[in-house]
């Protein structure tokens, strides 16, 4: 596809951005009320979510129909690609934040709380607290529950690793299908990827339930629970979003929207999915294993 063009493309005015801004505001406003135990909160959140769903449907619907009507040129395609690239870059930094925190807590904060460091003041403040990872104690347990056991790398997490890695494989297989103009392979590959995503989601939900019910590992289990749920939770959220996007792509593939030369949406979602994959590998190593 060429990137040069003899006539620029600019979309017509659109009401979606304004609706987008309003829906984000509504949803977050409701969330604050909900967190502060105001009765109206959840309803306002629901309205916001509904608006968001309406928005995505409408906005992406517009883009899809413009694309199908052939209004886009190579330059627009390139803009979409680069936009998606920078978006994923910002997501990378979002996860770097949480991994950075994990690193900082494990290598600086917790050893210090255990009395290391040139001042060693924590020996006085938190007498008896010693550092180990995963920490099955907290310096002061009056506000925290303490996990009974730690989450190991074997069992479910290992299965989840295998599942996500194979989903990357099935997605690439689907991409090959698309390149060979083999729609059956594309649809099958996508369906398999979605199925693996859903299985991952279910296993993860099961693992959370198990952690809460039997291991006493909760959001409230001091820093271990905090980092565990923050990292796996945001990852799980991204898997969910990715699965929904794959479902849209599957529906579009069944309507034969994609061709060998025109399938940016497929590639964008594939990049996103691989990104979520890579985050999982980092998670598996740093959260479950080491």
């Amino acid at each position, binding site marked *: 596809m060429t*990137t040069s*063009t*003899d*006539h*620029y*493309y*600019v*979309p017509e*005015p*659109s*009401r*979606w*951005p*304004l609706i*987008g*801004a309003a829906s*984000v*505001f509504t949803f*977050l*406003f409701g969330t*604050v009320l909900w*967190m*502060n135990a105001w009765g109206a909160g959840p309803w306002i959140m629901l309205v916001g979510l509904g608006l968001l769903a309406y928005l995505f449907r409408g906005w992406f619907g517009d883009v899809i129909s413009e694309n199908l009507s052939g209004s886009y040129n190579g*330059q627009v395609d390139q*803009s*979409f690609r*680069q*936009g998606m690239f*920078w*978006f994923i*870059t*910002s*997501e990378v*930094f*979002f996860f*770097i*934040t949480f991994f950075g*925190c994990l690193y*900082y*807590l494990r290598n*600086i*904060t917790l050893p210090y*709380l255990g009395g290391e*460091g*040139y*001042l060693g003041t924590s020996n006085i403040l938190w007498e008896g607290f010693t550092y180990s990872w995963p920490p099955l104690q*907290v*310096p*002061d347990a*009056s*506000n*925290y529950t303490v996990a009974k056991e730690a989450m190991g790398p074997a069992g479910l997490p290992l299965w989840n690793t295998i599942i996500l890695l194979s989903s990357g494989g099935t997605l690439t297989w689907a991409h090959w299908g698309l390149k060979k103009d083999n729609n059956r392979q594309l649809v099958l590959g996508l369906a398999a990827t979605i199925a693996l995503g859903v299985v991952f989601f279910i296993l993860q939900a099961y693992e959370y339930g198990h952690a809460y019910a039997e291991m006493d590992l909760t*959001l*409230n289990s*001091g*820093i271990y*629970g*905090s*980092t565990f749920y*923050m990292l796996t939770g945001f990852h799980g959220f991204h898997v969910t979003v990715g699965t929904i996007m794959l479902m849209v792509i599957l529906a579009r593939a069944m309507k034969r929207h994609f061709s060998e030369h025109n399938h940016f949406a497929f590639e964008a979602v594939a990049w996103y999915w691989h990104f979520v994959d890579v985050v999982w590998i980092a998670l598996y190593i740093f959260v479950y294993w080491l």
Partner: protein
Amino acid sequence: MSTEAIHDDHHDHAPSGIGRWLFSTNHKDIGTMYLIFSLAMLFLGGASAMLLRAELFTPGLQLLDPDTYNNLLTNHALLMVFGVVMPAAAGMANWMIPLMIGAPDMALPRLNNLSFWLLPFAAIMLMISMAAPYFPGGGTPINTGWTLYPPLSIQVGMGMDFAIFTLHILGISSILAAINIVTTIVNMRAPGMTWFKLPLFVWAWMLTGLLLIMIMPVLAGGVTMLLFDRHFGTAFFDAAGGGDPVLFQHLFWFFGHPEVYVLLLPSIGVLGMVVPTFSRKPLFAYKPLVYSMMMLTALGMVVWAHHQYTVGMSQAVTTYFMIGTILISIPVGYMLFSFIFTMWRGAMTFETPMLFAVAIILMFSFAGVTGVMLAVVPADLQYHDTYFVVAHFHYALIPGALFGLYAGVFYWLPKWTGHMYDERLGKIFFWWTTISFNLTFFVQHFSGLAGMPRRIIDYSPVFAEFNMISSIGAFAFGLSHLLFLWIIIKTIRGGDKAADKPWDGAQVGTPGLEWTLPSPPPFHSFSTPPLVK
């Protein structure tokens, strides 16, 4: 540089009615909305500053109670940083970058409008965050300052939740805007507009955009953890649970220090356009200037903890951050030298934008000097959290960011409106703001060195004179902006017709294609790619 711009006329009618603005996909209209929004927020943020200075006019408590004072202070900072400087810079990027590089519009025009419309909603939520405590069930005011440090920020009322979500909305807006601007610069340059032909303003925004993409997610992550600590029992910033309040400071300043370059760089970009124009000489050493901006960007990412010298980091760590911070003065100094050498032996004239430019170079250098003082650990242990820091960052931000944007406004108003502004009023505005700004903040260096702490409603009577001078200066500074507003309104409504190239030196500098278009440019500037030779 010559160009070929072909317009086809049927493309040139703007949509009518309010829908033109609400549903816009036009970079100039969106740029205008950004600028108007920013001006409105400037008056709001200025009003809160006036109130703070009125309270500080004499020692003792006059108008406010301590919590309200700090609530207002927090609001003032967030408004100025996120509501005024960033939107104004984004507005100029919207207006000028497509014109400069010969693009039809921004790369992703609808996304562009989303970036803008998130801002008014964020502003509303910010106002709610400030007002909530004064309603039943709203809890205590946000008395943390804009840095939102825990544990205090975990204890205050629900206003903090609104503030956190305000930052989320602003973060989404900035990331989307940055993605759009970077994509525009990479993908939409007209054929022949190579990287080292780009106007400095475009380069400055390229780097600003990259910074935003890297730092806004970190702020979002940090305040999200704050939210979880507040409501869902996590222990990120609580030592009793194995967390660390200092961790938040690292997250905040990992965002916060690069953020000051986000505020600075677009203005440096404006200087890169203004100084050559009115010196009638090309930019001195353009390429090294670009490299020094890159160095500034890179170094800016790794020096954040100079804001935290007093929290008990180890000596090795503070030493590293000290050296890193002092190194930053190399690219900063280089940029200033480059501007000075551009003026050297130039045929200089001093229209309002140039007056601002020269004043910026002088006053911003001053901030650089106090910055190096603050970067030195043993010295900063004394200066930290005093008015010396307040003086430092106001010298950095008002000349470095705000005045640069004013220079941009005066420089480009003729292009935007098609009219020349009133040069006499412009000059009055310049002298009025510059003198009153210095009156306000210069004395704060002294009160700071003498130990007056910041973020406190009251002070020892020994600082009474300094504070009275500051307050008088601040009122004069605030008032000068009514003149600014009037100049802008007057220019929009009429005035001498502006030529396509209203400044005779404009072509000498390192411009893009902006002066090849009429003033004001047609609704769709380029509908086919112009050729840059």
